[in-house]
């Protein structure tokens, strides 16, 4: 009955294209902040594609790594929040109640993944760009913290739909916006409580690893490491 939503990120598929970044921005009313604020690292993206170089010319390598809220089971951002704005939901997600947030930014310091973004000012959509806003997701105001919700509105919509049709949720339902958009299917979302779901299967992959697992945050995202091509004779 109860779900445990999780994700797998296949780094061998991810091409660093950024489709997920815009998908999330569109779905979740994530504002743009403009050049001046961007220069101050105040962008609001809920998912970012980390780019790391390895080695140097003529043998450089690059690794891309999409990083979003890891929905930690043991989330450092939760206990530090004085108002329970950052809290653990019954489905094991890290919820963020914008209305309760007073803007201490403590959770953002505590989050080892630096995925929480803060509204330093009220977000602005130059008219008529405001018409693009998704009415199913509230627009956050100045002084509150926000971050990836695993597209909670999509999860809820699917659950409600399934309940209305008196059935269980199917595999591939719900789909967060970033997962929906990813062309090489690097992102897989699903129920970790269902051992047969694709995400559970991938979470058990020998290529799987948790980001900063040494910190004991117990993330619900599994990263499948990039593979290498073995030479013709191996």
């Amino acid at each position, binding site marked *: 009955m109860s779900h445990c939503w999780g994700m797998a990120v296949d780094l061998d598929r991810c091409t660093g294209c950024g489709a997920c970044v815009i998908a999330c921005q569109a779905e979740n009313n994530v504002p743009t902040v403009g050049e001046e604020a961007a220069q101050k690292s105040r962008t609001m993206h809920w998912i970012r594609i980390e*780019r790391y170089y390895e080695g140097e010319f003529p043998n450089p390598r690059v690794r891309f790594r999409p990083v979003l809220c890891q929905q930690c089971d043991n989330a450092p951002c939760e206990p530090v929040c004085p108002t329970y704005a950052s809290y653990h939901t019954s489905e094991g997600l890290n919820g963020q109640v914008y209305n309760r947030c007073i803007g201490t930014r403590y959770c953002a310091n505590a989050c080892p993944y630096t995925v929480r973004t803060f509204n330093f000012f009220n977000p602005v959509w130059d008219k008529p760009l405001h018409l693009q806003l998704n009415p199913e997701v509230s627009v956050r105001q100045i002084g509150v913290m926000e971050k990836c919700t695993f597209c909670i509105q999509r999860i809820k919509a699917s659950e409600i739909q399934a309940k209305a049709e008196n059935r269980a949720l199917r595999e591939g339902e719900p789909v967060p916006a970033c997962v929906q958009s990813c062309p090489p299917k690097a992102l897989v979302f699903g129920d970790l409580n269902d051992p047969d779901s694709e995400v559970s299967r991938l979470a058990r992959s020998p290529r799987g690893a948790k980001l900063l697992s040494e910190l004991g945050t117990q993330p619900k995202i599994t990263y499948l490491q990039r593979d290498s091509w073995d030479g013709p004779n191996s």
Partner: protein
Amino acid sequence: MERRDFLKFGVLTGATATLTACEKPVQQLVRFVPEEDFVPGVATWKPSLCTLCPAGCGVTVRIMDGEAEVVRNGQRGILKMGLAKKLEGNARHPVNRGKLCARGQAGLQVTYHPDRVSGPLKRSSSRGSGDFQEIGWPEALSEVVTKLAELRSQQQADSIRFVTGEMRGHRRELINQFLASLGAPAAVQFAPLDEPVLRRANVLAFGRAAMPSFDLERANYVISFGADFLGTWNSPVAQSIGYGEMRRGRPGNRGKFVQVEQRMSQTGANADEWVPSSPGSEGLLALGLAHVIVKEGLRSNPTEINSSREVEEKLKDETYSPTQIATRTGISANRIERLAREMAAHPPSIAVIGGTPLAQTNGLFNALAVNLLNMVLGSIGSPGGMFFAPGASTVKEASSANQSVDFVAQVLSGGLENAEVLFLDNTNPVFAMPPSWQVSQKMKRTPFIVSFGRFMDETSVLADLILPDHSPLESWLDDVPESGTSEAVFTLAAPAMRPLHNTRAMPDVLLEIAHSLGGSVSEALPWKTFEEMLQASYRELARAERCHPTDGFEKFWGRMLEQGGWWDGQCQIHSPESPALEFQAPEFVPPRFDGSEQEFPFYFQPYVAEAFLDGSLAHLPWMQELPDALSTVMWGSWLELNPKTAEKLQIQQGDLIQVRSRHGSLETPAVLNPAIAFDVVAMPMGQGHAQFGRYAAQRGANPMSVVAPLQVEQVGSLAWAATRVSLSRTGRKGRLSLASGALYEQEKELELR
């Protein structure tokens, strides 16, 4: 009737189709969700089409009720209407199968952009001043009609020019029929991403002017020469889907991917092996690989061609042996041999070429060489290889393969100056051509310019009249994707939402002008609206055998609008009918570069920016704030150079650098990139707009301002990667917004900034 025939038929018979009774009810139902049918807060999904790049991905639009401030009949008011809220890939569309790239999703912001031209404008002071006054549609149209009537009466219709951007389907068809009925020459296309060089090479090699498609899903080995095929090139979404499957879709069988380029692209960043050959030597490297395969008899499943023998013999020539070409390509003989043996041992293999190598003066040689490598690999028209999409033949080849080249020729031969009337649709040559070609100055001499621009850009600002087009989401759209699918596909979409502004669809405006001109022009274009033209044309498609619309056209039309087009569901890989008609081993042509090595020590490589493409998307705030995949820069432009080079020149990250060529100079901040050759500097295209709305104007620098006006030999298009430049420090810091705080993750290379 063969399928290919009816595909041609579908697009081309529009001219002869006659007006038939309108089937109103169906069309009403699918066009807009009537307001009274909206359930507040419940989304409806409607198919549409992405027009932001030539890939032509299918879209679904989430429509929800909302209140928009709109202009109707000159009056501003609040209208409760269905509003597009999000764009996702159309899951049923064969090209993109439910996926969209970042740009495609940001297409939403084209509609809602605050700086759209919201109604017809007339120039109110000198050309280029940017002063316009609002006028009504009737006056605006009557001006155009008067002008055209005058030219017709003076037998000067051949001085009418129509320049469009990348355009397919019935919009293009309508434009050409309109021009033909006036007695004017056909429209020319100017689209910087059009790849005229590859098209010419494909004509020579395969008799096809189309862009190729690739069966990456089934490939085991992919070598790409400069093509950013996962980012911006050709059909990136389709190719990314295929790439994902090539990597992990077949348990136990992970394909290898090799990228050849001098500056690591987003695509190159994913390669298993990255091969930095010298600029312009890509074709030679391809021939070297082919040499090894032929010489060592490694061909497993060669594509048979008429001239196989001769070509093989020629390839065996020692001039192409790895040892001979090692110096020229900068790649060791051992490595060339190893790569050749690998790709031969792991079929199916594909060679891809795009981007920089095609923008060298010897681009045609490079393209032909890679085509030849594909032939040697046996990848042409076979599973896991390259092929031509079934729809492709109908599109480009029906008109001309060298549209962008024609435009360059026109600019250079004074064609623009001699024009009496110039129509511009969805193209910005002033921005995308080197200043030394003086497009702007030449256009200023054209007596009458009409632009259908949705935005005020560097080209539209020169117009006398601006007749703003609807946004794509407000328009009827159709398209035949040229690449990225093995099915025959027609994409068709009704407007997803009502227009926000006092704009009109360009095709409808042309029809209205035609009807006002009356006579033969009006007769040649009998449809009241573009929608009618589409229906008439697709009625022919419905008659074609394969569609079997036993339930009549209305139902067929309804189904098409519901699913976003028509496709036959039969995936087939088509080899070109007569591969390698004229296939020959091309003679090596060395690349030429503008500027001496002493004075201008660096190769200057502009590249197509992930976020902005050629610059046509720089106006979208989501794209401006999307960190570039490699440099992670937002909201600006930058110059990439190797940290070692920077150290030598005492340049630090963020320093404002002056880039100088023989043809101009620009200033932009430096970004260190460990994955670029020491003698190459690279700069993204797309920024440096003088006009283009609040988010793009006066931001960054346009690499075109230093690009030398060299042309690709035997093709004539701009060789935009053939310029040499010098760098100097300005002593100032540039404006640089970086998303990334570090280049490396490993501790030994900790960066402290």
